[in-house]
């Protein structure tokens, strides 16, 4: 049996039945990383020694009958999550040597749930991008075809799961950074409602939209991880006190009578081959008895302008602390993309321009939020392609400062509205690259979108497709 092919749910079961040990499982993944990661570059840091130590500890606990949701399960963590004692670079040379003295809340909750951390996953530097090509530690390659990009910014996290270098991983999304790489790598990626999962200890990108979430092999695995991460955090004033639902228990509940919204506004500019896969997927739901409803939505192109202004503004402020005085390297180590964003954000916040840019963007953001609110009066969820295309070739983002925004055009509106969304694989293109579909819901509807995603997974085999490596 190839241990590295196990899903989280399967691994958990085998560990509980003592068919396998956490050390065996962890070793299988570490071996996999050793074999493949030279080629894929999904990891910035591999924490082999700690992983094995923690796996041994997990085995002892299991032997003592301890049962924790992630006990002994190896995960990869995006390198913008602070990990106590383990360097956290956000894939930027500025933080090359930075070792946080504290764990982010997400990492703490995962550790408390028994996780074995394999290492820190590569990403676009500071999460600025949708390709991992802005990483100061080299581009991650798409496991389906290493001449192609994995997407980003959580490209390392998505590639690691797709390549079976990890059972599952943690990513973070500001606008597309979980869903888009999950789409390009053919895995499940869940972006929760803003405020559902704590941002404490996540190297801030755009504070008003950053949302941590899982990238997994199956929908159920995402539900399991969200269950651990979700909930109010005393260290993050923007987390919601709304009690999380039981996602795992409800995952197989019926979605009878559901109304799915689709919108022409979300078909515009989408590669026909990609759209065809989405249309086929919608037919699956129709067959299952779902009502499909055509709705009018605010064109996603407006979201790009809004997102670009708000995100750059916040970035210019969030990166101000990296002045080279206390830790890490100085500002000369910022890459071009970070510099571009800092300059643009500084400009949009400047006196005399604030009203024209930032303030106006906030107003349009409100309009987009209202647009979704209205739409969700008529439909339960909205389905569209996650990205207008399948993975693009290496080098595509170079000399295209708006590359990310174009690759993320279909996820940006729901991101700036703070809504949850999940990407699930719905097939391959003729070139053999994965196509992803997103399911978006209103605030706090994680349970519903997981159920809808789960139904598709039950009806199809796309999630079992794996790249040959």
């Amino acid at each position, binding site marked *: 049996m190839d241990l590295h092919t196990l899903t989280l749910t399967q691994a958990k079961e085998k560990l509980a039945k003592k068919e396998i040990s956490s050390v065996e499982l962890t070793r299988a993944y570490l071996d996999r990383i050793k074999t493949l990661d030279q080629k894929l570059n999904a990891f910035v840091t591999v924490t082999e020694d700690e992983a094995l130590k923690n796996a041994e500890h997990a085995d002892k606990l299991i032997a003592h009958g301890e049962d924790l949701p992630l006990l002994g399960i190896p995960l990869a963590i995006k390198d913008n999550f602070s990990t106590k004692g383990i360097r956290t670079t956000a894939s930027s040379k500025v933080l090359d040597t930075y070792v946080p003295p504290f764990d982010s809340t997400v990492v703490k909750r995962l550790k408390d749930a028994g996780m074995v951390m394999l290492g820190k996953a590569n990403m676009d530097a500071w999460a600025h991008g949708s390709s991992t090509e802005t990483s100061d530690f080299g581009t991650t390659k798409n496991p389906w075809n290493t001449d192609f990009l994995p997407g980003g910014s959580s490209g390392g996290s998505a590639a690691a799961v797709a390549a079976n270098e990890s059972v599952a991983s943690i990513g973070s999304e500001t606008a597309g950074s979980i869903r888009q790489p999950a789409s390009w790598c053919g895995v499940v990626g869940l972006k929760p409602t803003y405020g559902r999962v704590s941002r404490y200890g996540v190297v801030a990108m*755009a504070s008003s939209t950053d949302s941590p979430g899982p990238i997994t092999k199956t929908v159920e695995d995402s539900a399991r991880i969200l269950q651990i991460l979700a909930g109010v955090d005393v260290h993050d004033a923007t987390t919601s006190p709304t009690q999380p639902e039981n996602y795992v228990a409800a995952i197989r509940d019926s979605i009878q009578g559901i109304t799915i919204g689709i919108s022409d506004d979300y078909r515009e500019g989408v590669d026909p081959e990609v759209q065809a896969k989405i249309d086929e997927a919608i037919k699956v739901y129709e067959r299952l008895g779902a009502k499909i409803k055509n709705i009018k939505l605010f064109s996603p192109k407006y979201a790009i302008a809004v997102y670009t202004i708000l995100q750059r503004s916040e970035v210019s402020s969030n990166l101000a602390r990296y002045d080279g005085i206390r830790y890490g390297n100085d500002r000369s180590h910022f890459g071009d993309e970070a510099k571009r964003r800092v300059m643009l954000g500084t400009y949009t916040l400047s006196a005399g321009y604030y009203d024209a840019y930032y303030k106006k963007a906030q107003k349009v953001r409100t309009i987009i939020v209202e647009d979704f609110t209205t739409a969700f009066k008529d439909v339960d969820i909205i389905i569209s392609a996650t990205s207008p295309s399948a993975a693009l070739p290496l080098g595509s983002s170079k000399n295209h400062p708006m590359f990310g925004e174009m690759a993320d055009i279909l996820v940006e509106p729901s991101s700036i509205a703070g809504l949850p969304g999940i990407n699930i694989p719905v097939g391959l293109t003729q070139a053999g690259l994965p196509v992803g579909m997103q399911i978006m819901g209103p605030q706090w509807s994680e349970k519903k979108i997981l159920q809808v995603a789960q139904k598709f997974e039950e009806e199809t085999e796309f999630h079992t497709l794996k790249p040959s490596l």
Partner: protein
Amino acid sequence: MKNNDKQYNKYTPVIGLEVHVELKTNSKMFCRCSADYFGNKPNTHTCPVCLGLPGALPVPNKTAIEWCMKIGLALNCNLPLVSKFDRKNYFYPDLAKGYQISQYDEPFALGGYIEVFKEKGSQEIKKIGITRVHMEEDTGKLVHETVDGKKVSLIDFNRSGVPLVEIVTEPDFENEYQVVQYLQKLQKIVRYLDVSNADMEKGDMRLEPNISLRTIHHPEQSEGSTDSSAKPQNDKFELPNYKVEVKNINSFRFVEKAILYEIKRHQEILDKGETPVQETRGWDEAHQRTVSQRIKEEANDYRYFPEPDIPPLKWTQNYIEQLKSSLPELPDQKIKRFEKDFALSYYDAEILTRDILLANYYEEAVKVNQELGIKNQENKYPKVIANWIINKKVDTEKTPPSQLIKQITQETKVSEISDEDLNSIIDTVISENKKAVDDFKKGHENVIMYLVGQVMKTARQKIAPDRVKSLLLARLK
């Protein structure tokens, strides 16, 4: 003299004030580190949040916000029902995050006032408008030292994130006297609210006056009139086209001196037909002057925007009413009550209420006195106690109010000397003061008080003067 007055009348000082007050909450503004940092080893009161480490997030301190709102209420401000924090972006090595969390366009409190006397000795009231009261966080502190023979600048982050309330006034002050009164009142108020020690030496209160002079136009002069008493018709609501800020002063006296110095400096420049440079200056106590620190060509661009890490804050009217009713009696109210209830002068009442502990001590003493049932001679007893406390500089820590009353009673005890004994003393005094007695009989009635004094002196005890006087008069008739 008259000439000088006229000269001075050419300009009216226009002064505004920004005051930072450090709150004495247990924990810092956005983390749980102890805010009681003064005198502690550098960087021992820190955590990821106040160090601004990557990913750390601010969680606002409820008590600090409540205290800030209380200050607003005590300064007669309106408290809006919605407020928020903003980021003020600027670079300085002591600023951990590269921005300060502050409040920009929606502060906790707006539009209040404090009343002061217009001039020294005047009873005319001048209202000083308070523009806003807002909440922010303090910065770290740079320490310049020599380490291993090398001159270095070190950063101590103990102070980083300590809650700071900024109180901004309108440019309403017309002289340094109004400013000092305002500062004293503000200091008293925050101490009464028990939200800050307002200890100047520890930097709990930092003062930044901004000063300019407005030229008063004398239209009658241009008409050839020399009547300087005519009311100048000035452009009262027009602010001067420059402003000089004096930063970070930590003493009321220095503020006073800096203002006087600046007024004189501006006057000399304006007299030459020039305009003082818009700039930031500092007070140099050693040389008794202000010195230029930074020329401001235009306002700094802090690129304020709403702090995305903290959701907007909303209050109910009910909550604000509750907060209002939780305020203690404030210094001005206490002064008025003391004047009314205890028949004290403003002077006495003001002194007794400077420190709430002293005010409480005084009230306690008055109460003890009443409970003892000691006859208030024409209701003067509270006044006697006040005089005692003020003039004899009673050590209120060592003397409980009951003991103080005992002391006063003993020392002001009226002698129980009999009329007979008193008359014999009076007779002695009459025989020894022939000339005075003669004068009295000639009609110099004032002399009687001299004789009363002589009787008291001879008796060597306190006797009610009225009693001595009436017995004396009886004897002299």
